[in-house]
């Protein structure tokens, strides 16, 4: 069975978002783009799965911008092959899933790892939509993953608890932080990765189902104030919380 990891390109989480003049995109100057943090976790899980169960690990990326350096990183971290499906225009999860599904078909049967969401659009739909298109079961937001034969037992955090989800394999798994600790590539791995296949292909962008009308910054919070220093300020704070903000019930 092959193993697939799907990788998105997102602004680093330390980015201060500014809106571009078109009011539909973010100003990209000065923004550092990185592999989506949840996809780093998906890649790590995929490497471990491939090491334990064999098969080839293929990394797939859909997007408009050059991503060679980061895809090489994925190869250095253990992927066998990387494919960049080059598109233009905004896609959204359904569009990305459509392109990924077509590319993955020849690699089936395959178990597929995605991040639980990308930290730009924050939708969390690609993995599930991909599973639907490939007629595979899906377990979203997994925090643990254990394989016995052709069954996997996963856990995911829910409101006020943890649930166990059991799935047959192959499946699509979307990964939550805490599942593993993504590795750093060593120098030797980085050198070896230069010889691994990295392909850039054109992909047809499907029509989007959602149209973005505008992108706006949220309203600023009103300027706050430091009410005092050290324990002497505690009575002042308690008074403000009780009588001004009215969030403490006497």
């Amino acid at each position, binding site marked *: 069975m092959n193993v697939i990891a799907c990788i998105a390109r997102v602004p680093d989480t330390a980015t201060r978002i500014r809106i571009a003049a078109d009011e539909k995109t973010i100003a990209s100057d000065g923004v550092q783009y990185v592999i989506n943090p949840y996809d780093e976790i998906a890649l790590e899980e995929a490497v471990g799965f491939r090491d334990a169960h064999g098969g080839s690990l293929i990394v797939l990326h859909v997007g408009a911008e050059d991503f060679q350096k980061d895809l090489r990183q994925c190869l250095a971290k253990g992927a066998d092959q990387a494919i960049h499906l080059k598109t233009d225009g905004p896609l959204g999860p359904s569009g990305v899933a459509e392109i990924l599904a077509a590319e993955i078909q020849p690699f089936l049967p395959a178990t597929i790892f995605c991040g639980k969401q990308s930290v730009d659009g924050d939708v969390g739909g690609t993995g599930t*939509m991909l599973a639907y298109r490939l007629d595979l079961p899906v377990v*979203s937001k997994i925090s643990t993953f254990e394989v016995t034969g052709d069954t996997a037992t996963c856990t995911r955090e829910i409101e006020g608890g943890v649930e166990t*989800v059991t799935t047959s394999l192959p499946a699509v798994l979307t990964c939550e932080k805490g599942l593993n600790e993504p590795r750093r590539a060593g120098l030797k791995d980085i050198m070896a990765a230069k010889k691994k296949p990295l392909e850039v292909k054109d992909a047809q962008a499907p*029509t989007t189902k959602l149209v973005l009308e505008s992108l706006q910054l949220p309203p600023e919070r009103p300027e706050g*104030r430091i009410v005092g220093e*050290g324990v002497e300020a505690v009575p002042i704070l*308690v008074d403000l919380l009780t009588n001004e*903000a009215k969030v403490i*019930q*006497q």
Partner: protein
Amino acid sequence: MKTGILIVIEQRGGEVKRASLEAIAAGLGVAEKLGGGVSAVVIGNDIAATAATLSGTGVEKIYTVEGTHLEAYSTEGWCKAATAAAEASDAGILMVGATTLGRDLAPALAAALEAGYASDCTGLDVENGNLFVTRPVYAGKANARVTCTADILVVGTRPNVFPANVQNDGTGTIESLAADAAEIRAQVTGIAAATKGTKDVSEADAIVAGGRGVGSAEGFAVLEKLAEVLDAAVGASRAVVDLGWRPHSDQVGQTGKVVAPTLYIACGVSGAIQHLAGMRTSKVIVAINKDATAPIFKVADYGIEGDLHEVVPALTEALQTVMQQG
């Protein structure tokens, strides 16, 4: 686009989740402007009583899809059941509370119905007969306003944003739909409740969060005491989670949870951009930090410059006194 609205209800053990009532309220608000009716679907096993509790909420029709294979949640089983209700109701808009279950089910539903999917929305408005959805992106650093070009739109409503006041005199009728057998390959096989006494940051009305300034895992004891007095959850910054002092489930911020409690007390949290994104819509923010130049003070309504290990115990004691007076 078709104007009918279908609310997909989340129930656990027969109890309707608050997020589903919020989705009903949001749906009724949209229906008023779009002119369509609102129906709901309850999925599970032995759920007639649950469906009946919804008859006075303003929904015109409550579909039930029942079967032993729907007792435990599965994406595949519930998706098929909800799809049957979508077809029966001829809805153009499906709404679901964007809880963990809702966020699991909604994209599957969107795929099955070839619908658009607007997840985790915080605003719904109608202009010239078109529905516009506002949803936070970049963990709330920006808001996107989107509209749908497909025949069907699946909307996830972010919990705690829309009011859940849906009581009216209406009497919704109940209609049972056949539950076709579904191929279920992935299914919930167990649920463990969180340790008693621990509150989930995504559900808490007050949060006491700690950052690197707390100093150690043991240092969180003072925050836990304050949280106990306030009936609050304990949250953590990414730095603290990465250091292994707190579990990831406590993390607030861009790779953790986005929260909006009534009261957020940040202790020893410097205020990295990705953390601020996750808590900036809290109603009242308090910051306690040694460093008066820490960015957290820019978003805090009230700040105390000082050592949290002195300030927090004093605050705990003072609040305890005030709250006992009542």
